[in-house]
């Protein structure tokens, strides 16, 4: 008999409950809607963290469940941000331009308005023409569709090329890293049409919205929480049925799954494109809260940090990715923001702004070596959940993780 999706995945309900509680608590504490204990910038940080959790879920799908260590998902994240940023910037500039042109004696023609917007946006890179890629920037609906379509298409083409030629393992990781580097370098050029290294800015101002940032930040927090919830449910659904079994089979032994008659490449491609779209949606929600996007956001290092979050949180379990992303990125904000107290050693004072990355790097090595399950392993301890005793010993989530031979040493 078929059990319901919820019954098979009790963690989804628990996750929803936690997420709802969190959102409610932040709303109550916020300056816009509640008692004002949480500052607007802190609410924004929390909203951004939720977006990072969403891309971490995507990363967990592709890495923890499918065994593909993609070091390029921040490229999709950034592309999603650029797509929504184009509309935000165009529309806001249009409102300003129409306002200022209405002061002139003769009412402006539509082409004059567009020219003036072009001048405003691209003056900083010494141009005034709209490049081709801005063709749909005036339409919110189309641009929202592009948020998913552009990264999805890029993932489709790249994934098809890579999986077709059976590039796997570290080769694939390096190729994805090369992809994000190529994209970042391309966008750094002034004639790429996206304002080069200036990036798109002023994205926090929603066109036509007069409410203060106190309220807008909470709206975005709700939207991010909603997206995370939906994304989590989608991911849980994707990995729970037969599709999930095949995908995990690919992770554990790709050749065997192929010999069983499954089209491994198709499964991989579906997962790759799906996670790219999830990452893009996360990016589209993240950058309006951050206010600015530039190509440096897509640097390969960002995607590696993403892998770090997921690894520390615990691969192969969706809540692990969320915990890892939230924990590490918030901790990182706390340390690098200068809020962590310095430690005087007498001869030297440890300033966390300087030493945080050293600590992160080393603890990351430690997690890889001693706790391949990550922080999610703690939850196993708490719930006293034991791995099935099939071959005697606990095995890690993928081929790259602990193997039986090692474990039995």
């Amino acid at each position, binding site marked *: 008999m078929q059990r319901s999706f919820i019954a098979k995945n009790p963690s989804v309900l628990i996750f929803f409950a936690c997420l709802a509680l969190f959102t409610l608590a932040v709303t109550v504490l916020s300056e816009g809607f509640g008692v004002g204990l949480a500052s607007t910038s802190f609410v924004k940080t929390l909203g951004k963290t939720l977006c990072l959790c969403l891309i971490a879920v995507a990363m967990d799908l592709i890495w923890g469940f499918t065994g593909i260590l993609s070091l390029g998902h921040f490229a999709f994240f950034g592309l999603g941000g650029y797509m929504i940023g184009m509309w935000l910037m165009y529309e806001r500039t249009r409102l300003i331009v129409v306002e200022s042109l209405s002061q002139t004696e*003769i009412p402006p023609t539509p082409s004059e308005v567009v020219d003036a917007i072009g001048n405003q946006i691209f003056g900083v890179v010494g141009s005034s023409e709209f490049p081709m890629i801005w063709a749909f920037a005036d339409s919110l609906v189309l641009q929202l569709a592009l948020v998913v379509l552009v990264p999805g298409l890029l993932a489709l083409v790249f994934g098809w090329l890579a999986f077709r*030629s*059976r590039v796997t393992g570290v080769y694939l990781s390096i190729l994805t890293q*090369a992809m994000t580097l*190529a994209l970042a370098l391309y966008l750094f050029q002034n004639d790429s049409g996206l304002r080069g290294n200036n990036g798109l800015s002023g994205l926090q101002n929603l066109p036509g919205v007069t409410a203060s940032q106190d309220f807008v930040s909470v709206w975005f927090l709700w939207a991010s929480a909603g997206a995370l919830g939906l994304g989590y449910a989608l991911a849980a659904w994707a990995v729970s049925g037969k599709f999930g079994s095949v995908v995990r089979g690919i992770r554990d032994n790709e050749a065997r799954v192929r010999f069983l008659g499954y089209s491994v490449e198709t499964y991989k491609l579906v997962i790759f494109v799906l996670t790219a779209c999830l990452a893009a949606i996360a990016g589209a929600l993240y950058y309006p809260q951050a206010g600015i996007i530039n190509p440096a956001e897509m640097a390969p290092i960002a995607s590696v940090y993403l892998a770090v979050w997921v690894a520390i949180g615990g691969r192969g379990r969706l809540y692990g990715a969320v915990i890892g992303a939230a924990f590490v990125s918030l901790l990182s904000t706390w340390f690098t923001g200068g809020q962590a107290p310095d430690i005087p050693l007498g001869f030297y004072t440890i300033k966390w702004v*300087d030493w945080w990355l050293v600590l992160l790097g080393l603890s990351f090595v430690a997690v*890889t070596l001693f706790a391949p399950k990550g922080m999610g392993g703690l939850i196993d301890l708490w719930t006293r959940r034991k791995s099935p005793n099939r071959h005697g010993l606990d095995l890690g989530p993928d081929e*790259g993780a602990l193997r039986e031979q090692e474990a039995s040493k």
Partner: protein
Amino acid sequence: MKRLYLLGLAALLCCVMAAAQASDIQPILQEHKQIIAKSARKTIAPAIDAIAKSGSPQAQTVLETWAAKAMWMRKSDGVFFAGEKAEDKQYRLFDFDSGEVAGTYPKADLKQIKPNSGIRAMIGTALVQFQLIDPDAARRQAALTSIQRDPEVRFLAPLRASIEGEPDVKLLAQKRRLERLLTISFDKNTEARVNAIEEMSGDLGVDLRATLNPLVATTRDVALGEVPSGLNIADILAPGTEFFSRTDAYDLLVIKSLAQPKVTANDIRNALAANIDGGRVAGIPVARLDNDTARHRAYDILAKAGQAPARVTTDDVDAALASHVFFESYYEPSPDVTTAANASLTAIGLRVGLNQTLDLALDALSLTSIYFLAAIGLAITFGVMGVINMAHGEFIMMGAYTGYVVQRIIPDHTLSIIVAIPLAFVVTFTAGVAMERLVIRWLYARPLETLLATFGISIALQQLAKNIFGTQARPLTAPEWLNGAFTMNDVVSISYIRIAIFILALIFLGVFLFIMKRTRLGLETRAVTQNSRMAASMGINPGRVNMLTFGLGSGIAGVAGVAIGLFAKVTSELGSDYIVQSFMTVVVGGVGNIWGTLAGAAMIGFLQKGIEWLNPSNTLAAQTYMIVFIIIFIQFRPRGIIALKGRAAGD
């Protein structure tokens, strides 16, 4: 200084005193007394010319004295002297022709001739003819350099005259070359110019191209009906081509006042704005002027009423373009010269192109050796152990910082480099072995996690370097003998540092091949690469081999760091700048084979330079296209250029 100079001058005067009889200079000076005393830039030319052409042996001295503001006029009789300051505001005067002291006078009795900077420049030009035959070679060289910098027609004759007596071979060659160049530019005889052009054809010097290019400079012009005769026409232009659009043609007509300027959208708007009358323009409400059709209608009404110039229609443009002929003409009037110059420039262009290709190839070769050096260590660890070491870039950085620290302790640059290279090897070898023992050996079965663990080490090391050495770039100075460049001609040159890096890469290739093919360690390494278990059962300790291999790879990275630090700035990000290219090199080249790494480095190096050549203004785009190319390349050879075959290739 001035005093010394004048003393020397006096001595010189004494020497030539005996020769001073027939052509005295003083009469000439007296002849131009008024204009010399007045010293105005506009009128002084005849005086300078007269002195320079006098043939008097004192002419040079007089001009030099004059330019040095040391010429004085005695107010009583207007005679000119070289003056020198004596005691109590007194001045001692020397006669130009005899060189003898003419007496000491108070300043009130004298007038100092003070040439302004314009006049001094004119005197300088006049002096060139003397300097060209000066006994001092350095001054002849200086004169030649000044002519090269600012060639003018009047230098031609003195230059030709000076060639005959030139004793110095190098200067003679320079003078001959300069004479040819001046002939091309300034000779009155067309045949002589054409001959000179043909003689010099094929020369790669930048100066020749700088001489020829103005000869073939053209200007665009337009005439009604037919092409005017008497012009040296380069080309007849038909409007509507890629290089000469119809807009260009009409704009040219407007510039030459042969046609009405077009009325732009802006003009229309301004005209409309200027003619608003009670909320209406030409009867049309202002609010309805928000599109081009309405604006044009309103403007046409204004134009009919004579309140604005009429719009230029397409028919007007057609008619104007049809009735005129457009052409490009040379500034240079002689067709023979322009033809010869064009032919010569084509020939030069071909040779320059060939040489540029050579130069580009040298650049690419040096880039190849840099990538090879950076990637070879990575190739070893990846090839032999299947371990991706993300901290490889940080080992390169460690090597560069080692070089920097050594240079702080040992100030002699040559010695410090000699010490730094083995020391960098030792430091990074130790770091590599430590890392292998502490981290990597626990992760051999988990390649993806090695990648991440080494990445953790990489960020820790990078931040550590930042904490220790700061974020600013540290210098690692190359020894003196590596400065400068090996120059073949004006096009091809390569700096010695790049040659040194090329040689270093060759040495490393040799050392690596030796270790792999001729030593026990190499044998064991190859055995472990092919089949680790089998090797273990033959008595080889794979753990030890892996440790040493990893150490070797890291050590080489350290030495590469010293080499890279010599031409790049040493920062904590030095390694990460090269890490992606190193990965590309290894992936493209193929794993587990040193020749594959070499091929990969060569491919990436040449590709990058090639793309940069196609699009020189944009290195970012070059890198983008290169990465895209590599992604596509991997489609066709997923295991790299040189792939291992058989069991060693793994799955």
